[in-house]
């Protein structure tokens, strides 16, 4: 019987056993990920976005400079015609060229050309990285499904799965990007209307209506994209497991998600809770050594001891990152695969039925109700 707890517990065991998948997990996560591949990476990304805020004083509370500094030319230039601020003769200050005249000839053309070149290079390597990630997805999801079904596999099987399915994963990736962009259109239209109304001051009632509509559209975009994340998790596995065309895979993803939305949410939140705690636990030795190093620095201990403990902390920290990152990601991959297989089981009442035809039929005729 499926339960979120047993799913995650089993995933931890399987992820440790199948270290070969760690390599692919890193490649999928390292490349341009079209779909947040796991919860933990999402958390890391969101935490990175937080920037420290500098406390600023409002302009009206700053102390007045009036009367303190007089930078008028007659006050800055001394009697012997020397600029007090710049420390050079006033004639030289007056003779100084403006900033724009210091720029070399054709500066703008050169800057634009170099920028275009850099953009070209970035696009090229991004495409290569994206394709690499797509290839690794084929191998990874094939491996996850085989491991969950206790089937044997080796490097070659995973490589062949990557080679055989990369086009379908690419299509699905593009389809997801397209869907995500499409979901922004209502918000952009309403936002554009709202901006126009505000700029042209067409009436407060209209501003209010469009403001509320914009807010609803924003909430809808967020909810839709969160649901797309769940659909993505199912669709990525469905490509290998169901072997159907891309669009049908996407639709199957929706179908799987809608069958067990509660379990998807539960798993999502459980992973969001368990994985950071697990990460924190495995990083405890590093944190402890880091703390000891800081303490020794504070106590002005010998340089050798500080260096030794600091070095040890660094090595252990690096090893922990190297092991925990792919492990945690693989655990997440296994958890979603378990849920996928559990959801899929409820569809497999008639295994001989063509999944595409099955999907487009009403549930009643498929014997599900």
């Amino acid at each position, binding site marked *: 019987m499926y339960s979120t707890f047993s799913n995650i517990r089993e995933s931890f065991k399987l992820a440790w056993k199948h270290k070969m998948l760690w390599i692919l997990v890193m490649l999928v996560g390292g490349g341009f990920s079209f779909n947040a591949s796991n919860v933990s990476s999402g958390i890391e990304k969101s935490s990175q976005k937080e920037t420290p805020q500098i406390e600023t004083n409002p302009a009206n509370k700053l102390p007045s400079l009036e009367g303190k500094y007089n930078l008028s030319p007659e006050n800055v230039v001394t009697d012997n015609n020397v600029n007090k601020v710049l420390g050079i003769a006033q004639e030289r200050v007056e*003779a100084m060229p403006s900033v724009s005249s210091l720029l*070399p000839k054709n500066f703008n053309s050169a800057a634009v050309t*170099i920028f275009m070149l*850099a953009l070209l290079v970035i696009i090229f390597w991004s495409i290569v990285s994206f*394709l690499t990630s797509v290839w690794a997805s084929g191998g990874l999801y094939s491996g996850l499904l085989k491991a969950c079904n206790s089937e044997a596999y080796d*490097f070659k099987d995973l*490589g062949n799965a*990557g080679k055989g399915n990369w086009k379908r994963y690419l299509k699905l990736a593009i389809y997801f990007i397209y869907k995500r962009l499409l979901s922004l259109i209502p918000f952009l239209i309403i936002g554009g209307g709202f901006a126009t109304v505000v700029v042209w001051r067409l009436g407060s009632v209209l501003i209010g209506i469009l403001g509320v509509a914009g807010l609803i559209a924003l909430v809808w975009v967020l909810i839709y994209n969160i649901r797309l994340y769940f659909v993505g998790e199912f669709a990525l596995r469905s490509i290998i497991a169901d072997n159907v065309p891309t669009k049908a895979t996407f639709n199957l993803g929706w179908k799987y998600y809608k069958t067990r939305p509660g379990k998807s949410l539960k798993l999502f939140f459980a992973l969001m809770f368990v994985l950071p705690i697990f990460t924190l636990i495995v990083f405890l030795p590093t944190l402890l050594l880091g703390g000891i190093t800081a303490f020794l620095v504070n106590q002005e201990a010998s340089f050798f001891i500080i260096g030794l403990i600091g070095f040890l902390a660094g090595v252990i920290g690096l090893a922990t990152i*190297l092991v925990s990152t792919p492990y945690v990601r693989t655990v997440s991959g296994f958890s979603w695969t378990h849920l996928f297989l559990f959801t899929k089981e409820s569809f497999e009442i008639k295994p001989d039925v063509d999944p595409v035809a099955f999907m487009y039929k009403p549930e009643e005729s498929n014997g599900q109700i």
Partner: protein
Amino acid sequence: MDKYKTAGIVRRYFAYALDCLISMLVVLIPFLLVTFNAVKGYFASPSTWSALSVVLPFSILFLIPILMFFYSWYFTHKFGGTIGKLLFRLRIVDENGSYMDKTTAFWRMTAGYALSSSFFGLGYLWAFRKKEDLTWHDRFLSTRVIRVGSPVWGIIALILLKIVLITFIVYFVITLLLPLVGTNTQPFPIA
């Protein structure tokens, strides 16, 4: 090609070093020369110097790696390896013993190398494991690197290119760079 033995990681490393050296010479020499010319032109006459002269060094720096990528891809599937590998008499073959197809060559160069480079290059060191001499990218893509002859030309090329590179750098520093640094110039002339 079954009669040929799989190449060891040391020989593969030297072939890789030779490829790196070739890439460096192809990128570094033109880059340093055109950059030097641009800088020299600036010092000679800052007021008439055109910023467009730095576009060429940037083009070399940005575009040659992409060209090298396509060169490696083409050579790998067409001749069974890059120039470094060919000179060391190594060939990359698939499980049937023939040269790889374009797709496999592409995946080997992109996803394959990325796989082996992960975990601090553990995938390359994997070739020391057992007696198969197979890296992760070989295992994932069912390829292997075989020895088809003596590596003597590769070793000669490696030594010669090292000498060329060192000579060029010494020449560049002594003959071109140091006199330029010693020149008393005024980059921003003030009237």
